[in-house]
């Protein structure tokens, strides 16, 4: 068992209180995670300036280079994490053990986070639209058009209340360090591994350790302290969290995505051509991400599409985490899977809804220490069906009958929208729709992320404000 101390601006802190993260199958303790209280977070925040000062002692180029090396170390090296040494294989097994995710999926997320670290220069170049990062570092400069531009850091440290659902989401906060902004992280209770390993890799690669704090502890207590201590924070949560922080300029909130595929009138007849894209969008990464597709809207052939998806997804079984074919993550919180299935069953009882995977065996698979939900597809013959727009943490999708003209008013907030249509007028309406965040025009799987594009708001714009600066 590895002991993970809290990290207070680079210094390990052994708490008198600790939580155990256990293996979801065997119940064996995998990590002892030192828990701190909100007072420590609030008090440390008074020293946030030092974190930024330490980062400003290095140029953005040097920090980008350190992150590149950190990416290599994160992926390949044995690192000092907590009181132990952690190899890449240890990391993957530990992450799988406490989250219930298959090992192959955890490995894929390693590659994803390492890719972001190694390519952070290009990512920042894209997010800043080619701005010379030295202008951010200096505070102002000439972009090359003879115009002075100035950017003001909105916080010295970004607070982040991180989730446990997928190690892949950590890619969102990785670019913060080269922007010379520190990090105060509250790791997810089941997935402390990625923040600790990223921090270890960064420090090993030369990022000043004083720039990073990690505060495990009670979610509400630590989360509230982080959000109230820093002028810019990132939080992951459910619909209630989204609602709570809507319109709060200090908080970038990441929650359910309700990501969708829309088939236009001109494409619905060729739906078979897009079946692979639909299956991939629903199933990739165990269906656990906000960018997985949760609804497919089509003007025609809804029943056939649902049946075809069910034929592909329905037979998928819950396999042990070390099986290379495993594609489903376990629900490790007792009762969670059963509660989700009960909610789905209520929706399936609707007279205009058909459960397309019913013929492929029970969806809820309860085991001794965990439970699985097998991929579930249902067909909604109306946009008013209760299950038309739901998102769950497993491959679950509604195929919804909807005329093209009614789609935009029916889909609601949509993080990723893959619109398959060549209808230019419909495309223009999609581009103009403010309730769609990431828009894919054409048959692009919803989880396919282009890191050169912003995700749920541009991180650079969140952390830096473009303001006027005149010098005489």
């Amino acid at each position, binding site marked *: 068992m590895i002991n993970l101390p809290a990290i207070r601006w680079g210094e390990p802190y052994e*708490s*008198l*209180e600790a939580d155990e993260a256990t293996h979801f199958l065997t119940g064996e303790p995998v990590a002892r995670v030192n*828990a*701190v*209280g*909100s*007072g*420590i977070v*609030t*008090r440390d925040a*008074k020293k946030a300036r030092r974190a930024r000062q330490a980062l400003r002692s290095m140029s953005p180029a040097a920090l980008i280079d350190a992150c590149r090396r950190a990416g290599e170390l994160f992926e390949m090296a044995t690192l000092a994490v907590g009181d132990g040494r952690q190899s890449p294989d240890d990391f993957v097994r530990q992450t799988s053990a406490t989250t219930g995710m298959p090992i192959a999926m955890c490995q894929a997320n390693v590659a994803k986070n390492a890719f972001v670290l190694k390519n952070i220069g290009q990512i920042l170049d894209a997010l800043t639209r080619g701005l010379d990062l030295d202008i951010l570092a200096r505070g102002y400069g000439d972009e090359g058009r003879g115009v002075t531009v100035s950017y003001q850091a909105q916080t010295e440290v970004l607070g982040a209340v991180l989730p446990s659902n997928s190690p892949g989401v950590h890619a969102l906060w990785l670019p913060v360090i080269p922007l010379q902004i520190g990090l105060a992280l509250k790791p997810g209770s089941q997935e402390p591994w990625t923040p600790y390993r990223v921090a270890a890799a960064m420090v090993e690669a030369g990022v000043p350790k004083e720039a990073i704090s990690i505060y495990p502890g009670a979610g*509400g*207590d630590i989360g*509230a302290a982080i*959000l*109230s201590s820093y002028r810019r924070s990132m939080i992951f949560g459910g619909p*209630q*969290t989204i*609602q*709570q922080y809507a319109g709060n300029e200090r908080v970038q909130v990441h929650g359910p995505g309700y990501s969708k595929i829309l088939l236009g009138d001109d494409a619905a007849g060729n739906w078979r051509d897009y079946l692979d894209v639909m299956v991939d969008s629903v199933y990739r990464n165990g269906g656990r991400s906000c960018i997985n597709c949760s609804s497919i809207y089509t003007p025609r052939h809804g029943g056939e599409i649902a049946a075809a998806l069910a034929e592909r997804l329905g037979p998928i079984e819950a396999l042990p985490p070390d099986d290379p074919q495993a594609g489903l993550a376990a629900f490790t919180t007792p009762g969670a899977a059963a509660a989700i299935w009960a909610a789905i069953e209520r929706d399936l009882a609707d007279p205009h809804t058909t459960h397309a995977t019913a013929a492929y065996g029970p969806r809820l698979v309860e085991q001794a220490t965990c439970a699985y939900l097998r991929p579930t597809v249902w067909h909604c013959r109306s946009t008013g069906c209760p299950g038309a727009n739901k998102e769950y943490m497993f491959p679950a999708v509604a195929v919804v009958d909807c005329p093209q003209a009614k789609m935009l008013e029916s889909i609601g907030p949509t993080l990723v929208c893959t619109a398959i249509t060549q209808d230019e007028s419909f495309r223009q309406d999609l581009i103009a729709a403010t309730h769609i965040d990431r828009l894919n025009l054409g048959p692009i799987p919803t989880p396919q992320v282009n890191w050169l594009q912003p995700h749920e708001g541009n991180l650079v714009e969140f952390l830096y404000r473009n303001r006027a600066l005149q010098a005489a």
Partner: protein
Amino acid sequence: MSDRAGDIDIAAAVQAARERLDAHTVEIVAWHFHESTGCPFWLGKKRELKFDPLTEIRSFDDLKKFPPFEDEWLRGGPVRRWAPRALADKPIYVFETGGTTGVPKSRIAVEDFRIDYSLFSDTLPEEYFPLGSNWLMLGPSGPRRLRLAVEHLAQHRGGICFCIDLDPRWVIKLIKKGWMEHLEAYKKHCIEQAITILGAGHDIRCMFGTPKLIEALCLELEERGSSLAETGITGIFSGGTEFTPQWTRFCIEELFGGPPEESGIYMTPTYGNTLMGLACSKPVTKGDGYKITYYAPQPRAVVEVVAFDDYDEVVPYGGTGRVKLTTLTKEFFMPGFLERDEGEREPPYVKYPWDGVSGVRPFHELADATTVGVY
């Protein structure tokens, strides 16, 4: 040899305390179930019992004959049904617990809260809680016992108590609604009042504060370039499941500036609620890992740590179980009330020769539904 002598002394003290508890139990049960002195609730309950409490309760253990005490009995009126006939003409207070939604639990009191806090006063070291010094009470008043109790404590020690209110029911609503900015603003509102009073030349040396407010007060004073020691505070008592060893360590090492002999500030935890008296702790020290062990004010109240699957069975020393409270005063009889907390059973200690409880935290089966640390 001295250890052995100590063991013998402890054993004798434990035996004496047990005999005293048994005798007290018989006396209190007789009081509550006698027609001339008992309260309507227990006199009515007596008819449902399959035994006669006046003749068949001969020891504390005999209280197991009573059915489990249901907290629903304390919700709703008429409140007079809890007033013992022998005390019916006295001025009666009612104190409440819970009540964020629905009907709160209530209990009546005449002198109990004063007696409890006078007994607690005897445990406070004079060096840090000087007699005659004034107090600050920074916590919930309203329908709770705390404000009057702390005020009595101050008066009992020859001081005067300044009070700043915090409404925990509103705080719980803010947390449940997710209105964290309002929560911060409300906390700030309380702390600003406290700093104003502390700086107003009233010679306040002692205070009660809830853990969250003590922490917020220290952090705000630090923000202003001051400290708790600079305000003149030397003695603090606080309580609740938020008062953990780690929190104590954080306060002592980082907020107060060291242990009492260095910082001049002594803080002691307490455990209790409106339904029982005030359990005190053994001194909390770094050498003991800031461990907090509470002992009830026996024989007026008893804390037991019982098995999760058998509430009549006390767990072995060091074992984990649910906290069970019994209150035995002439004003209130509450046998076997299951608290919403759990902890570890601790052996008797020379000053308190009966069982204690350490590691008190929300009962794991209810923890998700319990909002803690609100004030």
